[in-house]
């Protein structure tokens, strides 16, 4: 084991096969009425790794994320973090806190995921008080804000006084305050404009290199997947159609749907009509 850990520290983007898994999802099912939103979805995330789940709207990726986080119940299947099952909901404060420390979530819209009446510092303090009641809170708040590139000045600000990018930094800091094993990012940069997206993605890469936290990226944006994930899972109609190392999947897509997604990215010489035809044929 010490060897493996050392390898993690030296090469966080190294071969995922030799690293321990932190998150394992096995045979997840969830139906809403007659619609199978999630149908037999399984994947693993290596410790300190980064896994992308891509698919278009309605492909079941957000439902999968919500089940992993615990906001949605699965009809069948297991979500294991460090081999402990999260899907069986045991009541009580200790279990609740333990669940929170396994997985944290960064929401899509930073305009809605922060309480408009709570200042940034107060929101962080609240979380720290819950999870680490004995810690030195002011020091830790400054540390967390510094980690996401915010200053002391922002600690006293209300969410409405901050820009979209700043708010998403706050949301990330709040998730990191819990010190989770896995961070789920549900379209976390989709609501931000492109230059801010790049800043946030760089920030996330830095944080992963420093803390060894595992990322589960839920996104429809293949550019984001290319930037920040080691592995990728492609979902369609609730099923996984293709999975593998990101570079391989994007360079040599095996499934028609993956090819279609790649072709759908706007670029010079792009023909939306042929893509629409291909989509109908699929």
């Amino acid at each position, binding site marked *: 084991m010490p060897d493996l850990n050392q390898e993690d520290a030296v090469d966080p983007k190294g071969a995922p096969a030799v690293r321990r898994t932190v998150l394992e999802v096995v045979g997840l099912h969830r139906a809403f009425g007659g619609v199978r939103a999630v149908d037999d979805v399984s994947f693993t995330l290596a410790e300190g790794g980064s896994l992308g789940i891509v698919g278009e709207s309605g492909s079941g990726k957000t439902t999968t994320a919500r089940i992993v986080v615990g906001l949605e119940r699965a009809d069948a299947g297991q979500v294991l973090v460090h081999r402990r099952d999260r899907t069986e909901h045991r009541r009580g*404060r200790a279990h609740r806190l333990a*669940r929170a420390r396994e*997985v944290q979530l960064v929401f899509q819209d930073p305009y*809605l995921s*922060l309480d408009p009446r709570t200042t940034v510092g107060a929101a962080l303090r609240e979380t720290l008080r819950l*999870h680490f009641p004995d810690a030195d809170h002011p020091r830790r708040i400054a540390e967390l804000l510094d980690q996401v590139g915010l200053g002391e000045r922002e600690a006293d600000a209300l969410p409405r006084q901050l820009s979209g990018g700043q708010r998403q930094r706050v949301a990330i800091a709040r998730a990191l305050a819990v010190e989770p094993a896995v961070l789920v990012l549900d379209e976390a940069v989709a609501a931000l404009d492109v230059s801010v997206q790049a800043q946030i993605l760089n920030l996330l890469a830095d944080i992963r290199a420093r803390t060894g936290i595992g990322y589960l990226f839920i996104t429809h944006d293949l550019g984001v997947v290319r930037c920040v994930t080691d592995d990728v899972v492609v979902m369609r109609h609730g099923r996984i159609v293709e999975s593998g190392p990101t570079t391989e999947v994007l360079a040599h897509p095996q499934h028609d749907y993956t090819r279609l997604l790649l072709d759908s990215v706007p670029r010079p010489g792009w023909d939306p009509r042929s893509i629409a035809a291909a989509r109908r044929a699929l």
Partner: protein
Amino acid sequence: MTATLLRRPGLARLRTSRAPLHRICLGFVALVVLAALLAPWLAPHDPNAVDLGNALAGPSGDHPLGVDASGRDTLARLVAGARTSLLGPLGVVAFSTLAGIAVGVTAAWRGGWLDSVLSRGTELVFAFPGLLLAILIVSVYGEGLIAPVVALAIAYLPYVSRLTRSLVLAERSRPYVEAYQVQGHSGLQICLRHVIPGIAPVVLAQATVNFGYALIDLAGLSFLGLGVPALTPDWGRMVFDGQSAIQHGYPLSAILPCLAIVLTVVAFNVVGERWADQVARRDR
């Protein structure tokens, strides 16, 4: 600014004629509350001092608002009555607001069968006239301020719990609540620290409006002789006592408490609605 006003006198007059209404009402509420608080020091006479030789005298230097059929000073009784007349509604509003928030938040947060039970239960209370409930309780437990206040508090609970429930349902669907759940906060903590402070201004505005209604209901009970004990100065009781004075052609001792009741109710309504308006505008 002045130029605009000169060009459009109609609009300007509309604006200015609306703003003072709120300010006057706020001032009146403050005046009544002050009178209630400082009653023992403000009252020019003992409100219960009977002077039968001087009964039904008109306004004079010694009694600026005249005296009633028993020769008691009307001004002193109005000021002292403010205390009883406001204390009752205060109890009604305090109890119904606290209990209503508890019921409304529980129903909205837990949902399911508990929501059905609580919502149908409060609707059942809605169907039952509060004044009748109060009369029933008073007839069982006898005269006194506590019984009608408790009865009216129960009758007013649905106003608050329904409003709270709908506000919490809206607040609950906002993603920040889910964010706190993911962070590991318990439902109770999220409600107490975030949801209730968020909806509080609107609920308090409703409570202010309720205050006016409760005042008029309690005054009605006093008028029927069911509220406060006979000798306690109270506006509703004063109207009741003033009936005979009206028959004798000296209406002042009955009309003044009527006026006090109506003005106070209107003032609380205007202040409460204005408050709710302001909150709504701020949230938008």
